[in-house]
């Protein structure tokens, strides 16, 4: 690409503009925080919150794991649930999109299950899975020794899986059913079998849509985990820490947790967003 003078300048200005304008609302929030934080009993001051964030693994004087461990617990729950969702939704989406009889079997049940908020399943799942966790699965009864893995409850992971499954599934189905007929016909004239067409035409053509589904699914998973951790019976995680801290009026922990939730959400979205841009580059430039 030839970066001519004018385009270069305008991109520099564009970036500067984006940063300056984009920084205005957070700045306002920060100012408001400074203003109200010093005269409110509810809103903690910035240094108080900063202290919590600066020592993430310090034991809090709360009935909760440290901020760092709580973050790790929430993150691992989401990543495992998301991984299971990706590993099931993509293959099933491809099958449903490509094989008529599979579509006819699964479409009704998927459409019925989709609108149910995943958190609604949690009480039932807790009854079903009890205290079963990644820890009990890996280490059996001695799992209490493994602080982290014993917190990765199966019920919680299934809820994340449920939440992340549908965006990935729907996008995969859309991707594989909207491949231009022309491209598939080119492959057919080259003598490609159904399997080879799937591998060399349908999947690459659907990849941008599938990755978009992964990004949205990750976002959903991250939202669902916070809602799920507010449920009674939960003993760890960022949202659990928020509840516990709130009960004893330690709002600096509440604020720190909210900040971490926001930042990690942005980060996860950015990682998958970059991947999405990469695999979708050809699509954006297609004429």
């Amino acid at each position, binding site marked *: 690409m030839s970066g001519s003078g004018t385009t270069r300048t305008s991109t520099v200005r564009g970036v500067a503009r984006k940063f300056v304008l984009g920084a205005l609302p957070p700045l306002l929030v920060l100012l408001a925080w400074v203003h109200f934080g010093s005269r409110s009993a509810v809103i903690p001051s910035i240094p108080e919150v900063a202290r919590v964030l600066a020592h993430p693994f310090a034991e809090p004087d709360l009935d909760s794991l440290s901020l760092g461990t709580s973050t790790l617990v929430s993150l691992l729950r989401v990543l495992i649930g998301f991984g299971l969702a990706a590993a099931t939704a993509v293959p099933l989406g491809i099958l449903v999109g490509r094989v008529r009889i599979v579509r006819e079997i699964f479409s009704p049940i998927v459409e019925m299950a989709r609108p149910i908020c995943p958190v609604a399943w949690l009480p039932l799942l807790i009854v079903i899975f009890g205290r079963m966790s990644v820890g009990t699965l890996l280490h059996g009864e001695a799992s209490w020794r493994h602080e982290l893995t014993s917190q990765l409850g199966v019920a919680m992971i299934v809820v994340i899986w449920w939440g992340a499954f549908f965006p990935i599934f729907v996008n995969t189905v859309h991707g594989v059913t909207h491949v231009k007929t*022309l*491209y598939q*016909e*080119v*492959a*057919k*004239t*080259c*003598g*490609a079998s159904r399997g*080879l067409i799937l591998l*060399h*035409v349908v999947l*690459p*053509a659907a*990849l941008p849509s599938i990755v978009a589904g992964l990004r949205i699914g990750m976002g959903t998973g991250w939202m669902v985990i916070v809602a799920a951790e507010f449920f009674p019976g939960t003993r760890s995680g960022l949202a659990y820490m928020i509840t516990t801290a709130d009960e004893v009026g330690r709002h600096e922990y509440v604020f720190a947790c909210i900040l971490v939730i926001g930042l990690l959400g942005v980060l996860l979205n950015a990682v998958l967003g970059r991947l999405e841009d990469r695999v979708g580059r*050809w*699509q954006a*430039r*297609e*004429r």
Partner: protein
Amino acid sequence: MTEAAIEIRGLSKTFVNEAGEEVSVLRGLDLTVAPGEFLCVLGPTGGGKTTLLRLLTGLTPATSGHLRVGGSAPGRGDPVGMVFQQNSLFPWRRVLANVTFPLTIRGIPRREAKARAREMLGLVRLGGAENAWPYELSGGMQQRAAIARALAAGGEILLLDEPFGALDEETRRALQEVLLRIHERRRMTVVFVTHNIEEALLLGNRIVVLGGGRIVAEERVRLPRPRDRLSPEFTEALIRLRRVIGLAPR
């Protein structure tokens, strides 16, 4: 007697359109194409030229009639090379990968596929563009890449659907040259669809005119090659062909 490269007898195709009406596009068409022949198919827009090629590749099933391509039923034998009317390069593959595609499908090892694809790109004079993305190419370059891919797909039979329709005069001429040179060298059977009479006369050994779902006129072209479109013989042949088409029953 050598076997025909393409044999069509009593071929009919009727579509049912969205409104539920029957559209009869081909009605009992007969046509035989000899191996190594360069056949041009002329016909009005909507005359069924694309349909004919789609039937030959097996992409669309015939309503009735007998059809053999390279000795097999359409789509059953060796793959045939097809250049589509619209840009059909895979946008997620670079130019070279587009041309290796049919070779990959056939299970030819990567290294060899690449070497052969480079050779095809050389034939259409696109050697410098192998790492480009399709969207980076001009329309004429895209068509050349599509021709290279079709050449890689089918050794013996090449079908082209108005491949130069959207190009300017100069590019069109350059590509006609390229195609003739390739045919000269490889002697494959070519079916070239166009609605440009001059183009048909410049390229074909034989020209057939499609009308009302059948071949309504046929002309063997005996002009020596290389053909000069400014020569009196060419002009004369052009005038005669125009008259034949004008007199042909619709």
